[in-house]
């Protein structure tokens, strides 16, 4: 037992180093809930860095979790490229129609200047304010959409899949442009105060493309990009399956992989232990209607599957907890981790089978 409670940063660092900290670290990857805390609409909340910084601080104090999450919404990047952003009352702002109308437009595409794009400046300002407030006590998570996954919003999903199969030259050209932007965007966030960059890469998951295609495409893109990001990275599959490519993910240089709720956490832990830490894999969509008993069961099971030996951060599977998830569920998740996630883990929480249907 640890005599003194670790800081969130110490706890996360130990876990990612495959050591058992004082308790299992947990990230509540909350974006829109800050608006509720401040009594603002989602649109108003994301209009000012001050609101998001204050929202994140309040959420971290309220739920006593182990990070500050500076992810605004996925479309914040394509907003900087010139795309429309569509707001809804009850969910994340979404990217509008794809900004690349013809595939050939890729030839004349140029990335935005990170320091001059208003949507990105707000994120950087948020990170600066949070860093000034918490110093090195709490991890500040910055986010990039991978160069390989960003084209879903740039081109549209169907045209991007066709590009992957049918236009290798244009694909490579687009990756060169996107990689440059992604590296600049990630490093700007690290300079602003982010301690870790979450590299969202769902298109690389085996849910979206076959593993052999990943080896030829998303994998070398990730290797090149992560090598140029001047800080630690966590790769998130945003609910996509990753087991078939876990060995390759570990070779990209990432420290953590965010895994799907459809995969068996215990089996993934065995195959990845010592190579990459895991983050996940609570089902955020179902979480809306969990009662306290079920919430505790699910969290204790995740701790049992992922917790032994460190190398695990409990979180949702998608990287963004839906706005509809009630505070009571989040409180129960927090209380359960604080009660049952203390190392050494309780005997009943050291191993177990969840019995749920998982790949």
């Amino acid at each position, binding site marked *: 037992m640890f005599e003194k409670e670790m800081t969130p940063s110490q706890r996360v660092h130990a876990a990612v180093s495959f050591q058992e900290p004082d308790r299992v670290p947990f990230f509540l990857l909350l974006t829109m809930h800050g608006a509720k805390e401040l009594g603002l609409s989602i649109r108003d909340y994301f209009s000012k860095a001050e609101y998001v910084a204050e929202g994140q601080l309040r959420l971290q104090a309220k739920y006593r979790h182990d990070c500050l999450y500076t992810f605004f919404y996925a479309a914040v990047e394509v907003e900087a490229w010139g795309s429309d952003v*569509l707001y*809804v009352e*009850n*969910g*994340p702002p*979404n*990217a*509008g*129609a*794809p900004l690349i109308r013809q595939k050939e437009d890729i030839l004349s595409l140029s990335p935005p200047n990170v320091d001059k794009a208003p949507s990105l400046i707000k994120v950087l300002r948020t990170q600066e304010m949070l860093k000034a407030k918490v110093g090195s006590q709490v991890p500040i998570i910055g986010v990039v959409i991978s160069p390989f996954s960003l084209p*879903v*919003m740039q081109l*549209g*999903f*169907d045209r991007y*899949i*066709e590009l*992957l*199969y049918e236009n290798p030259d244009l694909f490579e050209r687009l990756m060169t442009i996107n990689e440059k932007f992604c590296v600049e965007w990630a490093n700007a966030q690290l300079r602003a105060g982010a301690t870790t960059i979450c590299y969202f890469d769902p298109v690389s998951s*085996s*849910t*979206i*493309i*076959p593993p052999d*295609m990943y080896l030829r495409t998303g994998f070398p893109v990730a290797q090149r990009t992560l090598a140029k990001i001047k800080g630690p990275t966590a790769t998130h599959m945003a*609910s996509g*399956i990753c087991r078939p490519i876990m060995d390759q993910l570990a070779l990209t240089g990432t420290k953590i992989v965010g895994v799907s*709720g*459809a995969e068996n956490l215990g089996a993934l832990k065995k195959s990845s232990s010592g190579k990459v830490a895991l983050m996940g894999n609570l*089902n*955020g*969509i*179902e979480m*809306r*209607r969990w009662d306290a008993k079920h919430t505790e069961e699910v969290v204790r099971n995740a701790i049992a599957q992922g917790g032994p030996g460190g190398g695990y951060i409990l979180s949702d599977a998608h990287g963004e907890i*839906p*706005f*509809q998830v009630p505070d009571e569920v989040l409180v129960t998740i927090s209380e359960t981790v604080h009660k049952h996630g203390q190392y050494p883990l309780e005997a009943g929480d050291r191993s177990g089978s969840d019995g749920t249907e998982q*790949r």
Partner: protein
Amino acid sequence: MEIEAFIHALLALDRLRAASILRELADRFTLLEVTEALIIPALSQIGERWARGDISLAEQYMGGRICEDALKPLLSQQGAIRPSQPRLGIVALQDYHLLGKKIVLSCLRSAGFAPRDFGQGASATALVEQVATERIEILFISTLMLPSALAVKSLRSMLDNRQLTTKLVVGGAPFIFDSQLWLEVGADAMGKSAGDVVRILAQLTGESANV
């Protein structure tokens, strides 16, 4: 019929082989027979493989597109596969960036159906008008985000207020991650993969397994 060979051709992106299989069969059978005995089982099996995690969404999408392309010349020669069919619609509700609707549309067209395509990014309010105007009997709704899935509930309510009995078939990530969600939003059916659409159509119309 050569279901396995056809599936292999679709997943290997072998357009020539897929077209050749269809042409050879179309010489001996009607297009409806080819559709029911080959195309529908093949696309259903591909959908099941995706749902099991054996193939990727990209493979399913490209396979469906190749199937649709291979069928086009035969349709232009022989005309519509199903001259009589329910009035179908398809839409990506609120979202612009999803693949599911394209895959479902491809499956429906390859199975001989001609759904009215209401595009992507549609709001529930605008959709009600289109459904009423087009007298849609069955509407396929693809979603990517949870708010879009929850918007189906509003759509159902607006349809009910207009006394429109359009049946709603939903699919997409939120419904896969929460198996109770389709019931909560008042849908009539939920497809786990695009391969389910013909079976669901049969259930909703009370027709035979291949409609």
